[in-house]
């Protein structure tokens, strides 16, 4: 069975960064509706910086844990906003999950999702239903930890998680924000998608596609 290596991590972040760059305008507009319009810039700049850092320091001794830690630190130092600390915390958590190893079996990859969920939750003190990115990460994490059995493949698991996240993001439309800038809007936030949930669902979509490509090629 194939593995997920430190250089795969760089590759995955390159894919994240590309997608965030592509979604930059949309995310800015969604944030403009209920926040301050900077979410596209924050996500695009943050993941670009992280991907570049991962590519730059890729050497033989780097472990997956080192890579996630690096990505988190760079994101934190590059972005600020709410996004910086939340995803930095998420990636630090992932560093612990993946640990000081050069590679993990490929079917460990879905564990990234609950790690990110827990990291964001711990830093932001939010909960599903607050109309935040947690509304995408939580259903995805739930798929990974509860609904996927070992018989179904890694890619299928990630696809299911991505679909759950997309639905979760869509569901934020009906929610009233109680965290972040949009909370100020109260009832007037209803009817708008949460930008952080949308970007989270996009990251999960990238993860599933990247894994599918990777499996096909190896």
């Amino acid at each position, binding site marked *: 069975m194939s593995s997920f290596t430190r250089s795969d991590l760089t590759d995955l972040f390159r894919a994240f960064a590309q997608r965030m760059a592509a979604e930059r305008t949309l995310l800015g507009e969604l944030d403009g509706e209920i926040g*301050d319009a900077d979410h596209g810039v924050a996500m695009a700049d943050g993941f670009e910086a992280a991907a570049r850092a991962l590519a730059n320091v890729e050497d033989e001794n780097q472990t997956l844990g080192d890579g996630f830690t690096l990505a988190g630190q760079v994101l934190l130092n590059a972005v*600020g*906003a709410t996004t910086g600390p939340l995803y930095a915390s998420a990636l630090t958590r992932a560093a612990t999950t993946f640990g000081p190893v050069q590679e993990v079996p490929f079917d460990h990859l879905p564990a990234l999702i609950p790690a990110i969920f827990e990291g964001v939750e711990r830093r932001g003190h939010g909960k599903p239903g607050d109309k935040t990115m947690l509304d995408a990460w939580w259903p995805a994490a739930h798929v990974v930890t509860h609904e996927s059995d070992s018989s179904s493949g890694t890619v299928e698991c990630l696809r299911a998680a991505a679909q759950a996240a997309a639905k979760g993001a869509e569901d934020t439309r009906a929610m009233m924000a109680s965290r972040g800038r949009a909370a100020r809007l109260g009832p007037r936030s209803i009817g708008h998608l949460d930008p952080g949930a949308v970007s989270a669902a996009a990251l999960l979509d990238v993860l599933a596609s990247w894994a599918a490509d990777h499996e096909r090629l190896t």
Partner: protein
Amino acid sequence: MQRFINDPDDLVDETVAGFVKAHRDLVQKDPMNARVVTSRFAPQEGKVGIVTGGGSGHEPAFIGYTGRNMVDAVAVGELFSSPTAKSFADAIRAADGGAGVAVLYGNYAGDNMNVRMAKEMVTPEGIEVSTVVANDDVCSAPLTDREKRRGVAGEIFMWKIGGAKAALGGSLDEVIAVSQRAVDATRSVGVGLGPCTLPAVGHPNFQIAPGTMEVGIGHHGEPGTRVEPLKAADDVADDMLKIVLDDHDLPEGTEVVVLVSGLGATPINELYVLYDRLETGLEAAGLRVHRAFVGNYFTSLEMIGATLSVMALDDELKTLIDVECASPGMVVTG
């Protein structure tokens, strides 16, 4: 966009560069971090350091309040985005004179997280950090949820008070206590008549229909409590004052400090038209204006509109607001 910009991605860096050049008698860039501006007079051995930070696009806030007897170091974020935890940490390091650092900032999720992380970074280095979180924006949450309210232009009072207390030799606990008192004594409200545009986005991220106004608008265009037909200036002033005073039951005879700030594109004469009515209303409510500030003190790019902030004074706050200070955004002469 009819704006003076180069690459929108460079806007913040170029703003900081021009700012430290123009005001080199008062401020400088932190040699270690291009997103930190420090006072020429900081750090001062034995003085409590005063730090703040926030998103760009609010100039002269936040950088403009760096200077003598004011803020010692400011962390600079992207437009409308919290600075990074690293920038807050570097600002704390730059301000530290061995007597601890007071981080006086506004209540936004990003700032809360980044300040908390910065504190975690510098604590192992032996720097004592305490924080005060401004939440003066009345319309951002009900009074029962006061801790959810945002910080807006009233933050300037917090910096002025904290900066003066530190300059007079106050301990970290004293600086924190009196800055918190300044926040507790301050209420603000904003009224928006026109939106603003982040250059990287290229079009307004919210709309205010001509002929209407958004009462209770936030500093990034966060929608207010109500949208209503644009009224005459006197009626707007009355509404603003009512929002502030209803929330803040002040005994007759209380002395107050008032700040009327333009949001960026409102002509300055109109701020005086508002102030004229506001002072009349304050006096009718039995309050006495000890000092007033009217101008573009805390803007939101080219938003049209204005904010009102009122701080009730006690004896110490009154002494401290009068302490001489010199910063690009505010000068109080002795």
